[in-house]
C-alpha cells in the first residue's frame, strides 16, 4: 500500500540515504545543535530574576523544563521552507514532481535523517547540563519517555505542516521564506521557548492556547519533564491541528503545482 506514493521500502531507503546525506553535514549540524541553546539562556535569565516566582515552577522543575524545551526543539525543528524554496527556484523540484512519490516525503525524510544525526550532539549537551546542574538530573519513566517522544513527533508534524503550508506559497510568491520569518516571532513568544506558558497572564495564555504554538514546545517539554499536564487534552489538540493542517497543505499544494512554472529548469 502506498500513501501519496510512500511505502515501507521507500521510507526505509529514503531514511537510510538521508541519514547518510546528513552525516556529511555533521559538523554543521553540531553547530546548529549548539546554536539552539536559547532555552538555557532563558533559564539563566529567569534564575537571576525576581520574577521567577511568577513562572509557577521551583528551581529544579524550571531547570528540567528548559532542558526538555531544548531537547524537544532539537527534535521538532523544521527548515523545509528554505530547502523547498531553493529547490523550487533552481528547478531541482522538477525531477521530484515527475516521480511517483509526493515530493513532501523527501523533505520529511531529510528532517528525520537530520534528527538522527543530532542525537549524539543533543545527548552531549544534556550531559554537560547535568554536570553543571547535578540536582536537576532525572530519568523519565519509560511510559513518560514514550509519551514525550510521541508529543515531540506530533509537534514536529504540526511544525512541518505549518511550514509546508508556507512553502506551498512559493508557487505564488517565490520568496515564501520571508513569511516563515514572520511566523517565527509568535512562535518564539507563544511556544514556551522563552518562558513556560504558565508565566503568561491568563488572557494571553488563553489566546496562545488557540494557536498551535504551545503544542510545539511547552506541551511536549512538560510531558518530558514529568510536570503536571493534561495529557489527553494536549494530545487531542495536537491531533486536531494535524487534521486541520494536513488537508489545507494538500489543497494548497495541488493548487500551487498547477501554477508551477519549473523555473530554472
Amino acid at each position, binding site marked *: 500500500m502506498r500513501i501519496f506514493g510512500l511505502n515501507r521500502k521507500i521510507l526505509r531507503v*529514503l531514511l537510510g540515504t538521508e541519514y547518510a546525506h546528513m552525516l556529511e553535514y555533521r559538523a554543521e549540524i553540531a553547530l546548529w545543535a549548539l546554536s539552539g541553546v536559547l532555552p538555557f539562556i532563558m533559564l539563566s535569565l529567569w534564575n537571576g530574576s525576581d520574577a521567577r516566582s511568577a513562572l509557577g515552577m521551583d528551581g529544579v522543575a524550571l531547570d528540567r523544563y528548559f532542558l526538555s524545551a531544548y531537547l524537544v526543539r532539537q527534535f521538532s525543528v523544521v527548515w523545509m521552507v528554505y530547502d523547498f524554496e531553493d529547490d523550487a527556484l533552481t528547478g531541482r523540484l*522538477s*525531477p521530484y514532481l515527475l516521480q*511517483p512519490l509526493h515530493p513532501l516525503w523527501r523533505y520529511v525524510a531529510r528532517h528525520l535523517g537530520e534528527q538522527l544525526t543530532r542525537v549524539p550532539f543533543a545527548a552531549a549537551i544534556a550531559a554537560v547540563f547535568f554536570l553543571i546542574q547535578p540536582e536537576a538530573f532525572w530519568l523519565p519513566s519509560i511510559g513518560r519517555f514514550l509519551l514525550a517522544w510521541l508529543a515531540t513527533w506530533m509537534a514536529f508534524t504540526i511544525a512541518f505542516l505549518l511550514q509546508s503550508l508556507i512553502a506551498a506559497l512559493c508557487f505564488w510568491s517565490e520568496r515564501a521564506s520571508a513569511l516563515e520569518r514572520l511566523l517565527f516571532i509568535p512562535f518564539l513568544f507563544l511556544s514556551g521557548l522563552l518562558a513556560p506558558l504558565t508565566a503568561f497572564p491568563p488572557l494571553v495564555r488563553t489566546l496562545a492556547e488557540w494557536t498551535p504554538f504551545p503544542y510545539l514546545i511547552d506541551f511536549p517539554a512538560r510531558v518530558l519533564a514529568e510536570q503536571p499536564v493534561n495529557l489527553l487534552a494536549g494530545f487531542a489538540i495536537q491531533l486536531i491541528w494535524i487534521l486541520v493542517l494536513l488537508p489545507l497543505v494538500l489543497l494548497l499544494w495541488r493548487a500551487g503545482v498547477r501554477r508551477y512554472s519549473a523555473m530554472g*529548469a
Partner: protein
Amino acid sequence: MRRRHRDVSAVRDVSFTIAPGEMVGFLGANGAGKTTTLKMLCGLIYPSSGRVVIAGYQPQQRHPDFLRRITLVMGQKQQLLWDLPPMDSLRVNAAVYGISDRDANRRIAELSDLLELGEELTRPVRKLSLGQRMKAELLAALLHQPEVLFLDEPTLGLDVNAQAKVRQFLADYNRRTGATVLLTSHYMADITALCPRVLLIHQGHLFHDGPLDRLASRLAPERHVRLELDEPVVAEAFAGLGRLDSLHDREVNLRVKPQELTAVVAQLLDRFAVRDLEVNDPPIDQLIGDLFRQGRL
C-alpha cells in the same frame, strides 16, 4: 511604484504527433518555446489551452502510471544527491519506482556497462567530472525503463568525446528498448546523429516538422557555387548567373537556384577561365545558426 505585467504566450498553435519508438529532434533558438513545450509534454507545467496526450495520459494530471512511463533529463539540472555516490540516488529511485533489488542490480549493471560507468557510481557526485555526472544522471533517469524520454540538452557542456558517448548510448537505448525520444540540443551533431525527424519551433510557433534535409532545403533554397578564376573579373560579368554573394580578387561565391544549376555552371565554364569550381549545400547548423541569429522566419 507599481509592478507592470505583460502576458507572453511562450507556445502557440504547436501541434504534432510522435509515433512510438521515434527519435525526434526539437530545435529552436533560446526562448523559442522548446523547453516550455517539453515541460508541458512531461506534465511539469499546465498548458493554458489545448490538449496534450502522452502514451494515453494527460501529462498534467501526473498519474503515477504515467510518471512510471516517462523521464525528463535536463542537461543543467540534476536529481542525484550532490554529496553522496550516485548509487545511493539509484537505490532511492529503484524503491520509488517499485523495482525489486534484483532487477535494480541487473539494470544498473546493464546501463552502467553501456554508459561505461564503473567505480564512479560509488564516488560522491561532487567528485565526478561533468561527463561522468551526466552519464550517472542518465542512468538514474532510465533505471525504471521509461517508454518516453524527454531530453533537454543532454550533452550541454560535455567535451566532444563525452558528447559522442552519450549520443551512442541514446541510439543504443532507443534500439534496444524501442523508447520514444524527444530531444532538444544546441549541438546539431546530436540532432543529425540521432533524429531522422526534426521539429523547429520559433517564437512559440511550429515552423518545420519533417526530415532534417527537407528543413535544409526550406531554409536554404539555393546552392552555393564557389569559383576560382585565372584572372580577376568585374562583378557585372556575373549578371544573370545567380546571386553574387562575394567577389574577392579571383575568388567568387554565387548562390544559384537548384533548377538553374546545370545551365549556370555550363555558362560559367564557357565564359570564364575557371581554375576550380565547387558546388555545396550550406551546412545545416550554419543555416539554423544564421536563422536564430537573424531571427528571420
